[in-house]
């Protein structure tokens, strides 16, 4: 984990308020593994006071790429950064996905695609078969779709309105056949993960989930990002963000 001032070398805007930023940081690239995240300062002033955690979407040679959705003030400020600006970034943070020596099933919901993109690439590079199921609201939100063929062997895009690929929810496409003996990795909104957890449990399976939680320190110091697990409250930033799906006890939404 390092604190760096990283120069922005690329900014891209997509539909549905998605933005990707690429910044140069050989220090972070050297350590980055899929599932880890960076914690970014979004304000010079006293507000907002907290950094914003964002997964590593890709890390290559000297540059780190992130993909995020503008949902509030912090991500809005982050979306105002321009090429050539410097960003105060801490990373890489957290326990990455454990790479299982097996074909993989990746289940992504919305912005949850970010860590799975990086994971897919690494899995493919190691020669594993990768089936990626990517669920989004509508065609417009499938911002990363074009890139995804590079990081998967098979890609299933699922939209809620059927405007692209299959119609439904990503979890609708989890079944004995798609599962097979694949190792499962997932990231997405809590309702998706909760549904997936139940579905997998019923099939006697577990997966690696990358979770989110509101963070303060992002360094394991404050216990602010705790989630309930079978071994008590665990810190998403330091004990996660990747957890075994069968260890997660309760979702903050009560699901």
């Amino acid at each position, binding site marked *: *984990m*390092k*604190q760096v001032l990283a120069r922005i070398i690329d900014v891209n805007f997509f539909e549905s308020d998605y933005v990707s930023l690429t910044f140069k940081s050989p220090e972070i690239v050297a350590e980055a593994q899929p599932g880890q995240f960076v914690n970014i*300062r979004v*304000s010079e002033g*006293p*507000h*907002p*006071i*907290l*950094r914003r955690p964002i997964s590593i979407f890709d890390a290559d040679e000297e540059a780190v790429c992130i993909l995020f959705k503008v949902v509030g003030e912090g991500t809005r400020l982050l979306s105002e950064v321009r090429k050539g600006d410097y960003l*105060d970034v*801490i990373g890489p943070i957290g326990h990455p996905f454990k790479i299982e020596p097996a074909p993989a099933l990746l289940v992504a919901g919305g912005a949850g695609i970010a860590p799975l993109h990086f994971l897919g690439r690494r899995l493919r590079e190691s020669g594993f078969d990768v089936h990626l199921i990517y669920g989004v609201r509508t065609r417009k939100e499938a911002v990363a779709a074009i890139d995804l063929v590079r990081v998967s062997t098979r890609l299933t895009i699922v939209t809620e309105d059927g405007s692209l690929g299959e119609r439904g929810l990503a979890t609708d496409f989890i079944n004995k056949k798609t599962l097979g003996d694949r190792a499962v990795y997932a990231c997405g909104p809590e309702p998706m993960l909760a549904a997936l957890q139940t579905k997998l449990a019923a099939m006697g399976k577990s997966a690696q989930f990358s979770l989110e*939680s*509101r*963070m*303060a*320190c*992002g*360094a*394991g*110091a*404050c*216990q*602010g*990002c*705790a*989630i*309930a697990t079978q071994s*008590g*409250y665990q810190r998403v930033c*330091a004990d996660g963000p990747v957890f075994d799906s069968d260890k997660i006890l309760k979702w*903050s939404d009560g699901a």
Partner: protein
Amino acid sequence: MADINVKIGPLVLKNPVTVASGTYGYGTEFLDFYPPCELGAVFLKGITLKPRAGNKPPRIAETPAGMLNAIGLQNVGLEDFLKIKLPALNNVPGVFIANISGDCVEEFVQIAQALNDAPNLAALEVNVSCPNLQQGGMAFGVSAQATEEITQAVRNVSRLPVIVKLSPNVTNICEIARAAEAGGADAVSLVNTFLGMAIDVEKRRPMLGNFTGGLSGPAIRPIAVRMVWQTSKAVKIPILGMGGIRTARDAIEFFLAGATAISMGTAVFQDPSAPLKIIKGIKKYLAAHKHHSIYEIIGALEA
């Protein structure tokens, strides 16, 4: 170069910039950034007699120029603190201060006693903002009497310097500070967090699992500065000032108001290296004003 070491009771700090309890973990979490010995002192995560699971998540909510937390004192408990956390600091140079909480006076006393022979501790900070379970759950720190009682009890058994950390959720901070002084405190630290609340208007539920939480960060700074200033008129013991300090200018506000040292919590989340920047900034300010010692600005507010 101006002298910036300060005395908090019998304890000498090489510089007056410390990090606040609960925001810096058990002293090892920020090692990737810089060695803690660059700081005046590190206040360790608050501990209790028994381990505590802490509050139901979510535990964090961001607010204008601040944040709410309701960690609920999640900690490893006295035993693991002694067995695991303190020994982990064996090869970490720095000044470490334990922060202790309890449900009743007896618990404070037990912890203080057990820490007498603990390695790597320079002082004790007594957190009186926790609920007094024998008095209907009201925080000890809102009562002058309870504050004096705890201070005295801890002072009687501890071989370490005792710093009493005051709660700001009171009508009259001076009265409570005087009680800590009367109880034998070597210093007082203030402020702890302000009780606050935020609501998720879509879910119609509090943003925090615990409903309410403690407000910290720049938002509270003006109230904290006022309380430090009032307290400095009320007691003779040194004051450790905190509440929203983010820059050297902010720190200097507290020195001028009467603080002998300062502590940073929330702003360290924004920038882990902020304490080092503040140490530099203080030196620069003292040099620019041709001071030989930080003591020339402590309490130097013109009346």
